């Protein structure tokens, strides 16, 4: 630590830290643009000027850029000095020379870092009288809007997009006063983290296009802390509503998980909440897949008749429903009649993941810990598709070597250009052993095309070699390189996942991580689960597997299906038979094929309309809070379950989410109530947390068309939040209850630093969420057995491929994601394709799926293996078997997913 002085006041910071970061860590106001905590300093904007003094006798000093000045013992600087302040004001004036008169029609207005800094430095009148430079914009696809005139050349966009996220299609063009940031030619930004440009750009060059369609200023949004439903990483988000619609999702910082960035599936996948395919009214099935909407009471009558009847009652939970709803359903039907709702193979693999979490022998890393790995092996899982945020962390992990090299060379770690320039192409080794080319391939040391089953065998062999139980691999082979690198590493990371439904793959990855640990390494094991609450649902337990549940249904029984589309869990024939033979009560958010076959459909609340808890891949329980009260008859699933229970005459023992959460804590989720405070929490003992900003507008006019008597704002009995602007949000409250970030003078998301203990440190009160101990589950609940491999014949072994856009059930119903979704495809090695006479873009009939797919050629696919798109909407199952392929000359490629509209100016 070094003591230094700002304006005569003594502060402490880590020696060598950059001064801007140190000043912001003290929550001082110092304007900046180009510096970003995750992207480092480049000194491009000259905005953070301070006066630096030689010693205490130096009264004159000299101007320095704070972001490029290292903190050292005794350093004396002034932020307030008028020379520095004038300089900063002048810089803003230059930056604003060409800035268009756009604020009223700019989506950044009101949360614009450039606006904030302009006000902060005091620049107000444009003295420059010459004409403004202009640019043509580009259509960057369905996610991102482009308005180049607003650019202030801070380079943050390309530094994030290309340097940090590995994107290749956004660059800087031109020179001097004519810098252009865009693509070589107009087209969709391909990188899956493009949405972060919206938050990284300090002004309105890159804006959230779907949000802009129904634009609302930040101050008018009613927000709450939420958790992404896109994958098992559980990135923290802010969900924001206006006029009864969920308008946007933004990144909510979490030091251990998502940090400053989330992926596009999370950001743009939330529009399903406003979909017209929502179930908004209770309905009774009339037999042909259609429903008659009836009032809650009449629907409940039908439902409770089914629940009360002599027929056996079973319950099917869901990995996309909250822990609370799953536990409630398990209570309703009894543990012996409950199935957690995972597909058999998925349940077995997820169980292995939970067993790994419980085992002391391996360490499950947080996303931040992934970045500290010094050697990575990816086994059988395309992590870039199934847990994109973790893949982004892998990119940073391989970059880790550059920081070590910079330290040796005396380059400070925040000197972004210096660190990158010095390291050139040196990276920590990343090996990929899976089927199909991963988007991480550009940073991989070597890749080997491998079917997941072979990857499992490979991992076991590696584990034996490392343990010395087997002789070393033949030199020069991929295996030899991997084992040499792993043997050489200090903190190796083994990456795999459950998407292949292959429990032995997860076991093998764990064995490898354990053997590395025994060999004295700080080894880590990352296993991505399939869905946001796969781990939580699996931990709820229950005796039935999916096939047992379907078999019981086929014998005739009543069944409650909780937010689950069974067609995604088992093969369509069995689901059809099961749905036909049983009386089904479905509670779900969106219309699904399962709901179509149900007797009763109940409208369930989405993540934004309810409160609950998800458990992520590392068994971290995270609370999401209700953002807004849905219209119509929508209720959270657990509330429907308690209604069903009381119709049946049994007392559930809870009547609020809080009591239910406490019940969960007693049933294997000990500690879950600490994921976020309950309804009695008050900041400083008195104050609720305001969902609305203190500038929230239109309160006396929003609903004046319905009634001029303003309704009393709803009292929230379930959470500590208020449905109003009254309440606190200073950042000093419990960190799980921060609904948005704002601080005086800092309207943009850059105000985050006022909420952090220090830059990139945890929130003021620590990071939210609590890691649970799954040992209760392992002791008490039945363990799913490995799925039997289906005996099937065919020339090709198949492997499911889960495209980032489209393979997650709910986000695939979000309209911006739909525009990026691929049509069903099959991936083949070029040699196989040539042998079968298939060409890229042509059609191939895949027997196991029973339909034709578009052919994609990929040399990263092992010969004799076909990758088949899985998880896309529809009734396709993932084939874990073999299949035959034949050309389909009549195949017509569906041209969906391409943006057709050219964005205007």
């Amino acid at each position, binding site marked *: 630590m070094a003591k230094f002085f700002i304006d005569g006041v003594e502060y402490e910071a880590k020696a060598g830290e950059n001064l801007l970061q140190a000043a912001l860590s003290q929550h001082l106001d110092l304007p900046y643009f180009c510096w970003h905590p995750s992207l480092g300093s480049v000194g491009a904007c000259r905005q953070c000027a301070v006066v630096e003094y030689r010693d205490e006798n130096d009264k004159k000093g000299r101007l320095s850029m704070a972001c490029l000045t290292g903190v050292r013992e005794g350093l004396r600087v002034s932020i307030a000095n008028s020379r520095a302040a004038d300089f900063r004001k002048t810089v803003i004036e230059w930056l604003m020379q060409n800035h*268009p008169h756009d604020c009223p029609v700019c989506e950044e207005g009101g949360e614009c870092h450039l606006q904030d800094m302009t006000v902060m430095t005091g620049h107000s009148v444009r003295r420059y009288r010459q004409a403004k430079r202009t640019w043509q*914009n580009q259509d960057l696809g369905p996610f991102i809007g482009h308005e180049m005139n607003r650019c202030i050349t801070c380079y943050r966009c390309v530094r994030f997009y290309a340097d940090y996220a590995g994107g290749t299609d956004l660059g800087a063009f031109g020179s001097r006063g004519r810098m252009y940031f865009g693509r070589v030619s107009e087209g969709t930004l391909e990188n899956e983290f493009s949405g972060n440009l919206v938050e990284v750009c300090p002004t309105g060059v890159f804006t959230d296009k779907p949000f802009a369609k129904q634009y*609302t200023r930040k101050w008018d949004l009613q927000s709450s802390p939420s958790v992404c439903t896109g994958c098992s990483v559980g990135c923290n988000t802010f969900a924001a509503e206006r006029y009864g619609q969920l308008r946007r999702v933004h990144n909510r910082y979490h030091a251990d998980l998502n940090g400053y960035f989330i992926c596009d599936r999370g950001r743009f996948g939330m529009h399903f909440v406003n979909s017209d395919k929502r179930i908004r009214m209770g309905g009774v099935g009339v037999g042909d897949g259609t429903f008659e909407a009836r009032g809650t009471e009449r629907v409940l009558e039908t439902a409770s008749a089914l629940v009360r009847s002599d027929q056996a009652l079973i319950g099917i939970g869901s990995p996309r429903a909250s822990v609370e709803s799953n536990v409630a359903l398990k209570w309703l039907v009894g543990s012996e009649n409950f199935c957690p709702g995972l597909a058999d193979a998925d349940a077995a693999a997820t169980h292995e993941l939970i067993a790994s979490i419980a085992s002391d022998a391996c360490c499950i890393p947080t996303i931040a810990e992934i970045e500290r790995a010094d050697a990575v092996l990816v086994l059988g899982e395309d992590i870039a598709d199934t847990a994109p945020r973790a893949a982004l962390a892998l990119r940073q992990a391989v970059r880790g070597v550059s920081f070590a090299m910079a330290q040796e060379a005396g380059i400070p770690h925040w000197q972004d250009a210096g660190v990158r320039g010095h390291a050139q192409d040196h990276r920590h080794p990343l090996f990929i052993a899976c089927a199909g080319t991963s988007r991480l391939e550009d940073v991989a040391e070597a890749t080997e095309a491998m079917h997941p089953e072979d990857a499992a065998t490979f991992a076991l062999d590696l584990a034996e070699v490392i343990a010395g139980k087997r002789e070393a691999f033949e030199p020069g082979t991929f295996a030899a390189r991997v084992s040499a690198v792993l043997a050489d590493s200090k903190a190796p990371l083994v990456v795999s996942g459950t998407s292949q439904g292959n429990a032995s793959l997860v076991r093998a990855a764990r064995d490898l991580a354990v053997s590395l640990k025994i060999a004295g390494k700080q080894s880590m094991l990352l296993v991505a689960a399939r869905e946001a609450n796969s781990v939580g649902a699996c931990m709820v337990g229950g005796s039935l597997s999916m096939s047992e549940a379907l078999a019981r249904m086929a014998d005739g029984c009543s069944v409650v299906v909780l937010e689950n589309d069974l067609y995604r869990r088992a093969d369509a024939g069995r689901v059809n038979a099961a749905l036909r033979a049983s009386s089904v009560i479905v509670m779900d958010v969106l219309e699904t094929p399962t709901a179509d076959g149900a007797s009763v459909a109940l409208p369930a609340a989405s993540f934004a309309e309810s409160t609950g808890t998800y458990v992520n891949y590392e068994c971290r329980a995270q609370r999401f809070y209700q953002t807004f009260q849905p219209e119509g008859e929508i209720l959270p699933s657990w509330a429907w379950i308690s209604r069903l229970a009381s119709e049946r005459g049994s007392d559930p023992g809870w009547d609020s989410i809080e009591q239910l959460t406490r019940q969960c804590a007693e049933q294997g989720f000990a500690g879950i109530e600490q994921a976020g405070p309950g309804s009695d929490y008050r900041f400083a003992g008195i104050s609720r947390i305001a969902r609305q900003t203190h500038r929230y507008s*239109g309160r006396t006019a*929003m609903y004046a068309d319905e009634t001029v008597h303003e309704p009393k704002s709803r009292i929230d009995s379930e959470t500590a939040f208020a449905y109003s602007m009254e309440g606190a949000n200073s950042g000093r409250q419990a960190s799980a209850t921060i609904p948005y970030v704002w601080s005086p003078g800092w309207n943009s998301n850059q105000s985050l630093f006022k909420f952090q203990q220090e830059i990139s440190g945890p929130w003021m009160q620590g990071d939210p969420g609590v890691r649970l101990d799954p040992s209760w589950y392992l002791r008490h609940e039945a363990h799913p057995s490995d799925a039997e491999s289906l005996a099937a014949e065919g020339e090709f072994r198949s492997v499911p491929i889960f495209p980032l856009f489209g393979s997650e059930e709910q986000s695939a119903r979000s309209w911006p994601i739909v525009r990026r979704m691929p049509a069903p495809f099959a991936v083949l090695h070029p040699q196989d394709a040539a042998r079968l006479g298939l060409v890229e873009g042509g059609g191939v009939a895949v027997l196991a799926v029973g339909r034709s797919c578009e052919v994609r050629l990929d040399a990263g696919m092992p010969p004799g293996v076909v990758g088949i798109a899985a998880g896309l909407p529809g009734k396709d199952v993932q084939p874990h078997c073999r299949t035959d392929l034949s050309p389909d000359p009549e195949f017509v490629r569906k041209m969906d997913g391409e943006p057709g509209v050219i964005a205007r*100016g």
Partner: protein
Amino acid sequence: MLSQIRTLWTVLSHTFKRNETVQYPEEMPYQAPRYRGRIILTRDPDGEERCVACNLCAVACPVDCIALQKTEREEDGRWYPEFFRINFSRCIMCGMCEEACPTYAIQLTPDFELCEYERSNMVYEKEHLLIQGTGKYPDYSFWQVAGKTIEGKGKGEAQQEQSPSDPRSNLP
């Protein structure tokens, strides 16, 4: 005693002064153009809606009686309010909305006669607020100043703009 006489004198002296009573409503008092009465939404000189739905009036309003929603016209790219509602039963005619408006769309007029038997009739929607003219500012057209393009005004065609640069050229 003296005080009472002085009072009588003052009162009686008014018999010979001009009558201050105005025969309202037969006789309308003079209202300065800047008087703050009923709020209107005006149009650009080209006849299109001036309001760009920026929400600044709504946030400036101290009684929060303005609510609107931004939308965009497909054919020309102009931002405009999908709905625009003022609850005059809450409005205090403070004029903050007019001051906040960056496009001169929202203006206060000298019309102060806002009386209804039904309070709900005090809720004005866009169709009640939007007039056909430009109001107090006949010449200003926000879209001719803004950098964002609309149909008929491309990049470089707004006031004080150079024609678009070529990112592929490094010529001076």
